[in-house]
């Protein structure tokens, strides 16, 4: 039975059920601000796809660029064998031996003493005419020290055209003058031994007079393993490109500071005129000449400290400093072989360590206050690459570099 109360309720409901009232001023502003602080997760895959596409485009543009040639003077032909050489430790002055071929005379050993430009690095060599070293002329003959009297003429001097054969039994004699006093040579590196053996392979005198003392050869000078020999002249270096993906943990007031790490990929490339010698079981089976391309690919793990400088709605800038350890995962030589190419992949041991600092620009892909934050970043920086016996590249020639890293970063 419908009571008065029921009728009253129905009347009230009919009036107010769908009633509308004036919306208070500023209500949406407050709601919008609150929503911004509690943003919902966004579809990650969309932003990752956009970021990956953008990174691929940028990387493609940079890979297509070529840096101007960086001339690198080399006196002696550079040999690259299968193992990476250790640095020859030097004192303030490092005597450098090069092969000099005066016109019409027998090849002689010229002693040049130059101060090393930086500790631990080989002293730069000046351009002088060099004698091309071939496997045939490399000698593994041990040189005996001269008798004490400096006036004693050498009994035997190899002629200009004669070959020094390991089986000839001839042992040239020289004055006992140790030009390498103070030179510390590490014995365990076959490459360096072969380089020394090449440097010292010619044991001619100075125009008939006793020449400088040649220390005993520690390793055979004749190459027996596959190698690439670089001709003297310029190398053409490509612009190094680094791409990475990182993660950053923010802390401190307003989360302005951060520590980050990640994974970086770097590609180094250079071209040079050279010779490729392939050996099988100690026997040379192949020899190719031409413009050789050496490409090195590094995977690195950086560790950086960040400080945000400017923060906008989407864009932000920051400064950072840190270090990176990189491993050469591929060291490839491409040698022209007729209409095709031959490839050689010597192993690169050790890690490339570097330290750097710079500033960066980042673009936040995700809504503000969402967790985590996806960001695109580009950071030019100055980096110093420590001498870590890595394959020759623009880094070994110019250890202090300005580089550009592009990538995606996940922020927490």
């Amino acid at each position, binding site marked *: 039975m419908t009571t008065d109360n029921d009728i009253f309720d129905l*009347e*009230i409901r009919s009036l*107010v059920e769908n*009633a509308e*009232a004036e919306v208070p001023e500023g209500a949406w502003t407050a709601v919008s601000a609150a929503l911004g602080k509690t943003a919902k997760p966004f579809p990650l895959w969309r932003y990752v796809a956009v970021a990956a596409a953008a990174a691929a485009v940028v990387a493609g543009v940079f890979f297509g660029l070529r840096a101007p040639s960086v001339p690198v003077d080399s006196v002696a032909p550079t040999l690259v064998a299968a193992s990476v050489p250790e640095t020859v430790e030097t004192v303030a002055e490092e005597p450098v031996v090069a092969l000099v071929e005066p016109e019409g005379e027998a090849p002689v050993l010229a002693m040049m003493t130059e101060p090393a430009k930086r500790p631990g690095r080989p002293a730069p060599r000046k351009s002088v005419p060099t004698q091309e070293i071939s496997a045939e002329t490399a000698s593994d003959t041990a040189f005996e020290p001269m008798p004490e009297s400096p006036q004693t003429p050498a009994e035997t001097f190899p002629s200009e055209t004669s070959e020094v054969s390991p089986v000839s039994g001839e042992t040239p004699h020289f004055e006992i003058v140790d030009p390498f006093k103070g030179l510390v040579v590490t014995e365990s590196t076959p490459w360096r031994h072969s380089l020394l053996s090449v440097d010292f392979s010619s044991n001619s005198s100075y125009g008939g007079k006793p020449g400088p003392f040649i220390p005993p050869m520690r390793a055979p000078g004749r190459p027996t393993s596959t190698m690439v020999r670089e001709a003297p002249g310029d190398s053409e270096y490509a612009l190094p490109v680094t791409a990475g993906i990182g993660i950053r943990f923010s802390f401190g007031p307003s989360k302005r500071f951060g520590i980050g790490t990640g994974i970086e990929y770097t590609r180094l490339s250079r071209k040079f005129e050279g010779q490729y010698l392939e050996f099988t079981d100690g026997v040379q089976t192949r020899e190719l000449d031409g413009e050789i391309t050496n490409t090195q690919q590094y995977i690195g793990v950086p560790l950086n400290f960040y400080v945000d400088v400017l923060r906008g709605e989407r864009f932000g800038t920051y400064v950072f400093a840190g270090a990176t350890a990189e491993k050469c995962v591929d060291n490839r030589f491409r040698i022209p072989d007729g209409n095709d190419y031959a490839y050689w992949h010597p192993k690169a041991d050790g890690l490339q360590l570097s330290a750097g600092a710079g500033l960066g620009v980042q673009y936040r892909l995700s809504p503000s206050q969402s967790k985590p934050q996806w960001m695109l970043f580009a950071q030019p920086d100055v980096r110093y690459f420590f001498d870590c016996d890595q394959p020759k590249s623009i880094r070994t020639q110019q250890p202090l570099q300005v580089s550009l890293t592009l990538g995606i970063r996940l922020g927490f």
Partner: protein
Amino acid sequence: MQHSDENLHLLIRKCKRGDRKAEKALFDALAPMMSAVCLRYGGDRETAKDLLQEGFITLFSKLDTFSGEGSFEGWARKIFVNTALMYLRKTDALKLSDDLEEARSLSSPDESPVQKMGKDDILRLISGLPPGFRTVFNMYVVEGYSHKEIAESLGISEATSRSQLLRARSMLKDKLSEL
């Protein structure tokens, strides 16, 4: 709300993706009606504004739970009613008693003056009720909750719910008769 069902669902999908423009559009569509709901439960404009903001924040955060079946408006209204109830519980505004004697003492006019009033007047009168009366009255009369549901929601007995309703209804009638 003026939006068609299809447009409404598109709007809701955009809101779920965090589209701020879509959220603003949905706010504009719902806000007038929900303002009335908040005014009925809040009692004053300041409280109604707080309830409105809280209600929308809750609505947008729980948007993923809307299955798409049934009235979105009804779903949204429930969120605002629950927001209002939580607020009233938190502020201890609900002073409910099951004193039926006091309820019975209130007069009941012979004819209904409701028909002479506009909805704004009714809203104002309802807002002027004490919190306990107001809450139970809104839930029972306007939202259509049963006494059992009201009792469970407010943590009171069904008898208390009934007495609160009686008192609210009587007070409203008295105020209407005074106008």
